[in-house]
């Protein structure tokens, strides 16, 4: 199970990479494995200000549908354009090419409550 040390995690299986005021968000390797083949990312929140834990989109696998939650409050400033034609990138490279959104962070203090790689590893029992 791939759980990069440098990222932060949520109990809903999103990862977040914070770089100054912006952050990149995706789903974890564990999450993509549980979902199976991802065939559609339904994310229509570009430009919206969302609160931490709000739904920013939906991931659709062949067999399952799952909501995607904001790890921190902020504005969705970009949706990964590759996902429109190649949603399978989320399965193949969940921490790289398969990232989901970029967020302009509203409240940097919220990052304190996110899980470390170690804590996330314990959460999923890996």
């Amino acid at each position, binding site marked *: 199970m791939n759980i990069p040390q440098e990222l932060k995690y949520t109990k809903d299986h999103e990862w977040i990479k914070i770089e100054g005021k912006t952050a990149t968000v995706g789903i974890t390797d564990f999450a993509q494995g549980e979902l*199976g083949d991802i065939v559609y990312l339904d994310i229509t929140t570009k430009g919206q200000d969302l609160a931490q834990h709000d739904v920013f989109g939906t991931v659709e696998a*062949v067999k399952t549908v799952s909501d995607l939650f904001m790890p921190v409050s902020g504005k969705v400033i970009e949706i990964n354009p590759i996902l429109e034609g190649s949603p399978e990138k989320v399965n193949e490279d969940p921490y790289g090419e398969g990232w989901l959104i970029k967020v302009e962070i509203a409240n940097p203090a919220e990052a304190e409550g996110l899980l470390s790689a170690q804590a996330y590893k314990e959460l999923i029992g890996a």
Partner: protein
Amino acid sequence: MDTKRIPLHHIHESLGAKMVPFAGFMMPVRYSSDIEEHMTVRKGVGVFDVSHMGEFVIRGPRALDLIQKVTTNDASKLQDGQAQYSCLPNEDGGIIDDLLVYRIKADEYLLVVNASNIEKDWDWISKYNSMGAEMKNISDDTCLFAVQGPKAAAVVQKLTQANLSSIPYYHFTIGALAGVDNVIISNTGYTGAGGFELYIPLNHAEQVWHKLFEAGKEEGIKPIGLGARDTLRLEKGFCLYGNDIDDTTSPLEAGLGWITKFTKDFVNRAGLERQKREGVKRKLVGFVMVDRGIPRHDYEILDASDNTIGKVTSGTQSPVLGVGIGLGYVTIEHAAPDTEIYIKVRERKLRAKVTKLPFV
């Protein structure tokens, strides 16, 4: 209820399957990827372990009478070595279960039922067995492997002397396979991809499983999970009990008029005959998404004016077509092919079109 294990549970685990509870059993939902497994069956050959399915033997001089009473299709038309799709109607217009009826010989039949309904079906059939037919539940002693795909017959043929090309669709033979006697080799399946279903006595199942994989090496045979089984059957428009048909849906509404034969007496025949005469008010239809989106079980179906006209019973993105497809009940006015309907997906109203089945 305790979740049971199928006999080859350990093999599926060792193959890396993700095991999930389904119909009271821990079942392999996928080994690698749903889409890859789906395409393996469409283009090559794959094996499903569907040993959770239930099997009842009905025997004796009154066996046919009992089967005729509880099922809608006409089992008197069957010859030895022939099978038919049928259903068990309830008294109130709905369906207890759908099933396969195999005629082994004139006074011996095999009924193959859904795993989730084994007890319910057994009790239901027993209730109508006033004629005293002998009934035996052999579900726990029988394994069922579905070898499916265009290359399936070639693989199975390597393991048996029986001439498979002489067994037509919905026919079967009983013979030796992979050194095991009394295997039912049946030209049936739930994928629309062709192939054979093998009913094997429990104590020899593991041997047959391994022989299948040795024999199919050249053809690239793979184990296939229930995830792909569901998308494969949906592309062909086959009903899944509990989703598309249940205790509240009539066979006529579900498009199963072709297995509802009023040439004989059966449970609720009068009720279904009346429904046929008066016409159904809703119908199970297939539809394809026009807008981007994936229909799912229980999503609402709307008309252009936002009136609810039905519900989605099964939906997915078709791996072959790459678009959303589904089955659902709609009011009869919206059931004709090419009718534009709308699926409510997360508060959005997405366009879809009623389509003839199968999708693929």
